[in-house]
């Protein structure tokens, strides 16, 4: 296509496609299960024959899931907001990018080591990374506010009053919309925390899946979808204060915090073993070299392979699914079906989806790639589909495939790319975490270190993961800048 390659966006897309195909040669993508389709069939059978009464703790698990999400997101948004006000300081920006580059599950694994099964573990695991994300997005929203009203204020107006009257009201709607969106993400995060032992939905979902009780698992998934799909019905301005006040009481009784464990964690556990054992700096160098060669480098390599493949497959899935909900294609019933399908895709946390597919297809990178692509493709497909609906076409515009290829895709392609690059870092963060499920990305080595009670190693590897995420974030920003792609922060 000599003509199309004149566009930088097309060139970048082809480059990424080539990289992903290259990655596929190095990656292990086989299906190892003997009867993968039979198992998949059983799973869907479970979904259509849900068993809502097998486990009486289900209601409690749902309550905990909601409570952890509420408290975590509320704390995250309050502190995120305060940090957003100070976002002009480099130190604050760096701090925020560090805390948000560490995934919720890693935070949970860290806090589990010293808070144990105390509710604070789950609350902080959500609140901390969310705080970093909120700070960034809130500050972006605040920056776009019309500055004139604050200039017209009388001299000597305090900073707080000035923000309260002249800035925040202008972007309040946007802040609200974004916070509500993050609450939905918080519900997903909260559910997934169950996989490492917190008393949320994931805890029971993991048990049911591990035992092949698909009807039980199906019931939990259906309830979770309902919970998310009905957010607009039960989350109202009037009821919000009630939820916020009640949520902390619904976190469940964990175990008391033993503060000695906290100081032990910071003064002993995370001190590199050679220093603790008095092997000195030479020992430390060997120790670092060992981690780098046996864990960090293979982990980074696999994380990058998986991320690049998942990113491109996400793009392809987006382009496939967005017409399902676009007004430019199909009719009302097909669009309703499309919406339901996309809601299911984006409500299923990639971690859960990967777990399900791993159980069914056996361990390789394939389930992870597919899970990441389906979830993220669902999210971006929803946004692109919505945007494509608002395009006004001339009455005699082509229909069907020609309309798709000539009228719609060229018009949404830039924002599609912008959204895809925006999610690059998110995909990488998830890729790393999927290692806990047994794929050899960085999370696998973090999990191994924690299983061996070597928190010093775990922390080094989490740090490596964070740096990789920050690097990808910078690269994505650079590419978006070069291609002049703009995104709304609310995606």
């Amino acid at each position, binding site marked *: 296509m000599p003509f199309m390659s004149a566009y930088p966006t097309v060139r970048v897309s082809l480059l990424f496609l080539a990289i992903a195909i290259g990655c596929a040669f190095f990656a292990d993508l086989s299906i190892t299960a003997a009867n993968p389709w039979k198992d998949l069939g059983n799973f869907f059978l479970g979904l259509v024959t849900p068993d809502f009464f097998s486990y009486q703790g289900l209601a409690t698990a749902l309550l905990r899931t909601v409570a952890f999400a509420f408290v975590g997101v509320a704390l995250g948004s309050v502190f995120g907001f305060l940090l957003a006000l100070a976002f002009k300081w480099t130190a604050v920006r760096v701090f925020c990018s560090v805390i948000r580059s560490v995934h919720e599950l890693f935070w949970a694994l860290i806090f589990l080591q010293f808070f144990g099964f105390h509710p604070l573990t789950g609350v902080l695991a959500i609140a901390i990374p969310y705080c970093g994300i909120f700070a960034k997005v809130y500050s972006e929203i605040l920056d776009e506010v019309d500055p*004139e*009203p*604050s*200039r*017209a*204020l*009388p*001299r*000597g*107006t*305090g900073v*707080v*009053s*000035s923000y*309260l*009257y*002249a800035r925040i*009201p*202008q972007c*309040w*709607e946007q802040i609200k919309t974004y916070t509500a969106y993050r609450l939905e993400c918080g519900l997903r995060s909260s559910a997934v925390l169950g996989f490492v032992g917190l008393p949320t939905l994931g805890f029971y979902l993991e048990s049911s899946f591990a035992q092949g009780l698909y009807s039980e698992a199906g019931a939990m998934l259906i309830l979770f979808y309902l919970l998310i799909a009905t957010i607009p019905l039960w989350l109202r301005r009037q009821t919000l204060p009630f939820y916020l006040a009640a949520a902390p009481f619904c976190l469940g009784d964990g175990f008391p915090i033993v503060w000695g464990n906290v100081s032990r964690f910071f003064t002993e556990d995370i001190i590199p073993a050679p220093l603790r054992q008095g092997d000195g700096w030479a020992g430390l160098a060997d120790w670092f070299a060992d981690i780098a060669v046996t864990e960090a480098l293979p982990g980074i390599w696999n994380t990058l392979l998986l991320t690049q493949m998942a990113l491109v497959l996400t793009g392809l899935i987006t382009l496939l699914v967005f017409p399902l909900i676009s007004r430019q294609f199909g009719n009302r019933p097909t669009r309703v079906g499309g919406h339901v399908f996309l809601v299911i895709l984006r409500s299923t946390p990639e971690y859960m989806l990967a777990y399900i597919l791993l159980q069914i297809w056996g361990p390789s990178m394939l389930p992870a790639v597919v899970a990441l692509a389906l979830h993220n493709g669902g999210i971006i497909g929803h946004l692109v589909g919505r945007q494509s609906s608002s395009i006004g076409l001339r009455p005699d515009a082509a229909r069907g495939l020609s309309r798709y290829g000539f009228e719609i895709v060229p018009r949404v392609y830039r924002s599609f790319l912008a959204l895809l690059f925006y999610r690059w870092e998110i995909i990488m963060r998830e890729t790393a975490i999927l290692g806990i499920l047994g794929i050899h990305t960085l999370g696998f080595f973090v999990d191994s270190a924690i299983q061996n009670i070597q928190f010093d190693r775990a922390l080094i590897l989490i740090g490596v993961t964070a740096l990789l995420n920050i690097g990808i974030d910078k690269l994505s920003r650079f590419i978006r800048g070069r291609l002049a792609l703009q995104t709304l922060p609310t995606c």
Partner: protein
Amino acid sequence: MSVIELSNLSASFGGRRVLGPLSLTVADGERVALVGRSGAGKSTLLKLAWQQCGSDIALVPQDLGLVPALPVFHNVYMGRLNQRSSWYNALSLVRPFKKDRAEVCEVLQALAISDKQWVPLASLSGGQRQRVAIGRAIYQGASALIADEPVSALDGPMANRVMELLSERFRSALIALHDVDLALRYCNRIVGISDGVIALDEPSNRLSTADILPLY
């Protein structure tokens, strides 16, 4: 004693000088009308004046500086944010105090929009918004005013009524006006700006409409 004192002021935009050098002093009790063609540098001059003057002064910028998401009351109340504690202001945002409600209502009555006190700003017409911005300036209770075309969207009788009100409430003022009659009637000094410099500076009782028109 002077309220505004600008000396050797100049401003450039994109390497091109748009204002100055000029000096201008507004004494206490003086109400100065800035007249001149649009693009002559009046708005720039007012902006710089606002940046350099003290705290006892109110501002009505050309784009009004209102917050569309808040109701009329709060937009007016903002005139006194600097006189109250942050807590008081925060509470007023949720539930305004009775005393403030009465005071704001009085200002709005004078501007003939007291029925709009709780209406979201977004639903007001251009002229009504302009009066809200003026209300904010009046409510501030400062002795001096800087205003950029404050009555441009008001019809004749309303413009007169508002200008009258402004002269009652502010001892001193620096107001950009394109309506020459209003300038002569409600200001006691006329300063004409042309190509960024002062082309005319006379007490208004020595001038007639015809003297000013060449500036346009």
